[in-house]
């Protein structure tokens, strides 16, 4: 389904390695299964040619990797999908890496596939998946090959894609898209329309599945603290395991608050959650509230913008009005 092919990216990477612009490439390679494309650093042409992949499973956002990568010698090539480019800008705004040490190639993205949806459609025992045109050819243990339309199994974050525009790059492959009029707040609105009790029940159900694996934090391009408060005994909230129902909520509230105004809504947290907790609904609540209370703000849309939580106007909403406004059930 992707408009740019892995081959095109490999050629671009080879060219940039060859002419010395960069000395390594951040890209995806095949993991254990056909659908777990894993971030990898490629240092030579051979590796690139053999292992570099780009297909409908390459959801991983590379921006966060640049913090560590730019501390090494030489320049690194990174491929940025539109989502990733927002995170890229946000990290630059926060001075988290040296722009000079990155060569960014913007690539269009047609949306990534959610493997759990594929599994649901194709059944268990997936042996291999081949991405062809607009479809996925799924080979399973039990059945004949199944062809699935990519559009049917798009990840939630891609169905409600906010932007197909790469906002940061040195060079662009293919054509740049537009900021979209997305339906990403629909789910949040649905929750807002519930009663307090229903919302409590909903989140109790979702969050009680949390196993505190920290995957959401570890993948989040906004969670790049030198030392995370949850790992810091001095912070007062240090905690590595869930012991009761409060802990789950506390962890997720604090995490969402920490990235409020900085979260670009890339959706990585929900993608990596092994328990399928819709974590993006927490982040999107903050984004929606921020947009409604303080005017539209898209983190990472431009470098150097002032995040809403480190900003104010003298006639901002009062917290009581805000809560009223954010609670459609009572509005």
């Amino acid at each position, binding site marked *: 389904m992707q408009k740019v092919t892995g081959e095109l990216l490999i050629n671009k990477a080879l060219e940039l390695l060859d002419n010395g612009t960069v000395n390594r490439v951040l890209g995806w390679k095949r993991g254990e299964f056909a659908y777990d494309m894993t971030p990898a650093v490629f240092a030579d042409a051979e590796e690139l040619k053999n292992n570099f992949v780009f297909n409908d499973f390459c959801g991983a956002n590379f921006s966060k990797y640049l913090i560590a990568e730019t501390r090494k010698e030489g320049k690194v090539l990174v491929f940025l999908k539109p989502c990733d480019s927002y995170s890229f800008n946000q990290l630059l705004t926060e001075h988290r890496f040296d722009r000079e040490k990155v060569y960014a190639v913007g690539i269009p993205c047609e949306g990534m596939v959610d493997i759990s949806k594929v599994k649901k459609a194709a059944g268990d025992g997936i042996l291999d998946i081949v991405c062809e045109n607009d479809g996925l050819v799924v080979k399973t243990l039990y059945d004949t090959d199944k062809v699935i339309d990519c559009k049917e199994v798009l990840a939630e974050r891609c169905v409600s894609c906010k932007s197909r525009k790469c906002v940061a790059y040195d060079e662009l492959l293919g054509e740049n898209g537009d900021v979209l009029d997305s339906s990403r707040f629909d789910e949040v609105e649905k929750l807002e329309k519930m009663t307090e009790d229903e919302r*409590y029940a909903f989140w109790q159900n979702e969050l009680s599945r949390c196993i505190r694996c920290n995957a959401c934090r570890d993948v989040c391009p906004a969670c790049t603290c030198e030392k995370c408060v949850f790992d810091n005994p001095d912070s007062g909230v240090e905690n590595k395991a869930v*012991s009761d129902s*409060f802990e789950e909520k506390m962890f997720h509230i604090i995490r969402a608050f920490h990235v409020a105004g900085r979260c670009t809504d890339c959706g990585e947290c929900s993608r990596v959650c092994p328990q399928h907790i819709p974590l993006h609904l927490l982040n999107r609540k903050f984004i929606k509230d921020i947009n409604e209370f303080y005017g539209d703000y898209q983190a990472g849309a431009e470098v150097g913008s002032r995040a809403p*939580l480190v900003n104010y106007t003298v006639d901002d909403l009062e917290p009581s009005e805000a809560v009223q406004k954010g*609670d459609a059930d009572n509005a």
Partner: protein
Amino acid sequence: MQVKGEYKPLIVAFCCNWCSYAGADLAGNNRLNYPDNVKIIKVPCSCRVNPMFVLRAFQRGADGVILCGCHPGDCHYTSGNYYTRRRMALLFSMLNYLGIEKERTRVEWVSAAEGAKFAATMNEFTEAVAALGENKRLEDLRCKK
């Protein structure tokens, strides 16, 4: 917390040093009663209150948390309460989104001259929280007696 069958909620009030703490003092000077379940913690400015403190209070068994600061525009540090206003607007909205009753959280601007407002606010807030009953939705069971 049960006293003679009467339920008394625990209220934690964060008061900024310059306006609201002085407002609470004034309520005392004028002998204006408010419930004893209100316990005040002094902070230099309402903007010192980290959302984590609010959550911590709930975790440890508070039934309601209220922040008091100078009126917008009167902050001793010029802009502190403006940040408080944004932070708490978002935090409280989020708590409500998770199903926490919105009556349990509040921000009120109380100046050093508003002793009466301080007492009235505390009476009103305590009553509202008492009406909800114990805070079961955000509480760390380990910390319960």
